[in-house]
C-alpha cells in the first residue's frame, strides 16, 4: 500500500513538472511569436534601417551593401561552420564586437 502511494506521488510530481514545462514553453513561444510579429511589421515600413536581428545576407541584399564591406565590419571568417543566415547579433557575440557600433557603422556605410 505504501509503495502504491509513493508511486502515485511520483506520478503527480512528474505531472506538475510537465505542466510547468508546458507553461514555460508556451510563454517562450508567445514571446518569440511577438518578436516575429514586430520584425515582420518593421520590414513592411518604407524607411528601414539595419537592425541587429537582421541576417548578414539580408543586409547585403536589402541595403545593396557589398559583401566585402559587411564581412570587414563584422570580421567574418569563412569556414565550414559559417553560413550567411547568421544574425548580426550572433556574429557580434561570436567575434567580440560592439554591436551598437557595428550597426551604426553599417548604417553609415549604407548612407554613403
Amino acid at each position, binding site marked *: 500500500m505504501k509503495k*502504491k502511494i509513493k508511486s*502515485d506521488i511520483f*506520478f*503527480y510530481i*512528474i*505531472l506538475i513538472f*510537465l*505542466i510547468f*514545462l*508546458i507553461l514555460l*514553453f*508556451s510563454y*517562450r*513561444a508567445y514571446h*518569440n*511569436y511577438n*518578436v*516575429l510579429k514586430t*520584425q*515582420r511589421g518593421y*520590414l513592411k515600413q518604407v524607411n528601414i534601417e539595419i537592425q541587429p*536581428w*537582421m*541576417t548578414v*545576407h*539580408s543586409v547585403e541584399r*536589402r541595403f545593396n551593401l557589398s*559583401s*566585402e564591406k559587411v*564581412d570587414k565590419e563584422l570580421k567574418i571568417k*569563412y*569556414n*565550414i561552420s*559559417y*553560413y*550567411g*543566415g547568421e*544574425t548580426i547579433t550572433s556574429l557580434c557575440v561570436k567575434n567580440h564586437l560592439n554591436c551598437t557600433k557595428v550597426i551604426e557603422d553599417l548604417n553609415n556605410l549604407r548612407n554613403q
Partner: protein
Amino acid sequence: MIFPIFSWISLLNFGLLFILTLLGSLGLVPGTLIWIASSAAMASSLSDVLLIIIIVSLAAIIGDIIAYEIARKFSFAISSWLSKFKSFQKGEHKARNMLKKHEFSIVFLSRFLLTSLDVIVSYISGFERIDRKKYIIAVILGEILYALMYTVAGFMFKETWVELTSVIGDITWILVFVIITAVVIKILIDRKRKKQ
C-alpha cells in the same frame, strides 16, 4: 569571398545542403533545420526553392533509411546484450507492442512535427525491426512534408526565419510535453480505477 557556402545558390551549395541534411538524419550534424531555412531564405526564385525541396527530401529519406538499416543490422546483438538487464525485460515487450501498434503515425509525425525526435525514432524503428515497407512509406511522406514546410517557410519569411524556427521549435516541444502529460494522466486514471 574565399569560401561563401550559402552566399549564392550554386551546385556546391546544393551539394553541401544534401550532405548536411543526410548527416543530420543520421544524427551526426545538429541544427539541420537552420541550414534548410537559411538556404531557402537565400533562394532567389521558385525554381531554387523547388530544387531545395527535392534535395532536402532526398537526403533526409536516404539518411533515415540508412539509420534504420544500421540499427536493424545490430538489433540482435544489442537486444541480447540488453536482455541481461531485468528492467529492460519488463518494459521491452510493452514498448515493442506500443511501437508496433502506432509505428506508421510515430514515424510519420516525427519527420516533420516532432523533428527533435526523428533521429531517435529512426534508430529505435530499426532496432525494434518494425515493418520495413511501412517505415519507408512513412519516411517518404513525412520527409517530403518536412522539406516542403521548412523550405517554403524559409523562403517566405526571409530575414525573420530565425525567429520563425524558434517559434516552431517551441511549439514542437509543447506538443511533446502535452503528449507525455496525456500519457501520465491516463496512467493515473487507470491506477485509480484499479484501486476502486
